[in-house]
């Protein structure tokens, strides 16, 4: 009989292979439509909201990027929300406000991004609202490529493809690959109405729907995920424009990276907890998004526990052996690897073959079109393993009820 742990591995591999195959099939079936967007029949009015907290280094460049957007200026206004910054953000924003008539600044005490956005929405004149992080820089045509999707009245939000602006060290270079895969995966999910994140660097929402769902959730650490799930749960669609590009600043050091990912994990888990009752209800959202995201978290945790067990089982032999070495046991003489063909080895090979194939296609569609197999292997085996660290820390924070704000 198959023992318990082997059975757990088999279940993990089953769902792992199933999910990867979904993405591979989605790619091959829709690859010609990756970059296409619906044509714009009329330009809707858009209010661009830029929430900012201590962004003196980047806000001016962000606003300049917004001013360069190819979109009728009479249909566009920019609202900068200074969320109680303690640096020169407000001063820079006020200078920009004086210089450009369609820029408005709202100054408020620090209370978080969600409340800043909700306050700005009430002041926004546009039919659509675009949210742009104050350290992100949209391409000139980004908005034009996105708004055509709103011709479909079931669409309430559209997100963009986020790329990395700062590529200075190993961590940010890995994030270049990571952001490519994230964007590509999100685009593939678009083909099955399952875009479940409208990212902070650039997303556009139908204002009436955002107001209908009560705005951004101030209690969620990832208000962009939460509002997307809220919109989907109301039966609206969300889309992703792969050709609408926005560059963003990513964490440069490991500590900041872990902090950012802890926030993503915590916010994701908060959102799953809030909406899990909708599982297996309401179309693709209930039948795919919630089970897929929940399963991803669950399997990541189970995978981590299995890894710990494996390290313990294998490691304890080496530790005990090393102890006996002190008593005269020849440890090095008996180091051996028994590599027999087993069911789990077969499944592991299939899983990694599919995963590498999946990443390879994703990288082809990245900005660098990277096909270097060594980079793919380093990304798959090294960088992706690092995902476990913030996940475990996030779980620890949930266990200790430490849910402070994890942005800056």
């Amino acid at each position, binding site marked *: *009989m198959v023992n318990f742990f082997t059975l757990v591995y088999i279940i993990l591999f*089953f769902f792992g292979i199933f999910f990867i195959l979904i993405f591979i099939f989605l790619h091959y079936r829709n690859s010609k439509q990756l970059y296409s967007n619906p044509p714009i029949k009329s330009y809707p009015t858009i209010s661009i909201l830029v929430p900012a907290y201590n962004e003196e280094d980047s806000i001016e460049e962000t606003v300049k990027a917004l001013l360069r957007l190819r979109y009728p200026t009479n249909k566009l206004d920019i609202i900068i929300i200074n969320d109680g910054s303690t640096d020169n953000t407000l001063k820079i924003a006020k200078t920009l406000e004086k210089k450009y008539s369609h820029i408005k600044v709202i100054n408020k005490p620090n209370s978080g991004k969600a409340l800043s956005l909700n306050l700005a929405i009430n002041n926004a004149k546009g039919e659509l609202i675009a949210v742009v992080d104050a350290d992100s820089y949209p391409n000139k045509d980004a908005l034009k490529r996105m708004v055509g999707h709103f011709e479909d009245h079931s669409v309430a939000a559209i997100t963009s493809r986020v790329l990395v602006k700062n590529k200075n060290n190993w961590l940010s270079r890995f994030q270049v690959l990571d952001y490519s895969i994230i964007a590509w995966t999100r685009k593939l999910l678009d083909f*099955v109405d399952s875009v479940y994140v409208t990212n902070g660097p650039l997303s556009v929402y139908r204002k009436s729907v955002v107001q209908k769902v009560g705005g951004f959730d101030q209690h969620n650490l990832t208000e962009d995920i939460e509002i997307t799930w809220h919109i989907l749960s109301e039966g609206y669609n969300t889309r992703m424009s792969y050709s609408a590009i926005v560059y963003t600043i990513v964490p440069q050091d490991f500590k900041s990276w872990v902090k950012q990912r802890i926030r993503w994990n915590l916010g994701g888990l908060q959102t799953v907890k809030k909406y899990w009752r909708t599982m297996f209800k309401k179309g693709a959202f209930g039948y795919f998004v919630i089970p897929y995201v929940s399963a991803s978290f669950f399997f990541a945790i189970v995978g981590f526990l299995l890894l710990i067990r494996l390290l313990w089982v294998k490691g*304890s032999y080496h530790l005990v052996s090393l102890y006996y070495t002190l008593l*005269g046991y020849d440890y090095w003489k008996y180091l051996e690897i028994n590599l*027999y063909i*087993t*069911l789990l080895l077969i499944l592991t090979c299939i899983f990694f073959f599919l995963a590498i194939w999946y990443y390879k296609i994703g990288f082809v569609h990245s900005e660098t079109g990277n096909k270097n197999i060594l980079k793919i292997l380093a990304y798959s085996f090294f960088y992706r393993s690092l995902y476990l660290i913030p996940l475990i820390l996030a779980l620890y924070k949930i266990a200790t009820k430490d849910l402070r704000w994890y942005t800056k």
Partner: protein
Amino acid sequence: MQSKFRIFFESLLVTVVIFVIAFLLGIFVESLRTNKIIESYKDYEIEALDLKLQNYYYQIMDSQSCSQAIKQNFIFADNLYTKGLELERYEEANQISDDLFREKKRYVLLKTELWLNSILLKKKCNNPFDTIVYIYSADPKTNIQVAQQKVISNTLKSVKEQYGNKVILLPIAGDLRIGNSQEEPFLGSIELQKEIYNISSLPSIIINEKFVLEGFHTEEEIISYLNMTKSTK
């Protein structure tokens, strides 16, 4: 128009097909390994019977033919030991069926028979060789015990490599039951040996039926016990 959600069912179908193929391949590879062990067992069973009959003969006849009997005994013991190690490795690798576990019991009984045969031969032929019987647990409860048993097994392997045809090494699982259920009784012949040699914990090593060592002992210690039994012969 084809539904865009059909892709989920197609992916599920392909996943199931991949799993069926992987399972069939896994079962095929495992059955190859099990069959190899079963086939070897059939040969060893005949060899063991032959050896037993030879032993009857040597018990009745004079000790002139001891060297021939010892040679036969060693060849058989060494083959059984090598096959036992292979069986252990196969057992770790087999994840679908537990057929090998059943085979393991047969091998344990065969090794016990060989041990008894060796005792008789030693008596008849004036102790021309040494026996090291390693009684271990087939169902270790902790990782520490698993590791400890592996260390002891390797240490004994090293002693065997040094002494070659002077030592018969017999690793025997000391806690196997007749059936698979926990209610089934333990194998009687092994229980009897444990009682005779007063073995209360596993793993233990019996050296020339005189010394019982519990837990880990270094190569040097085991060799010194072997030498001690020689001096008391």
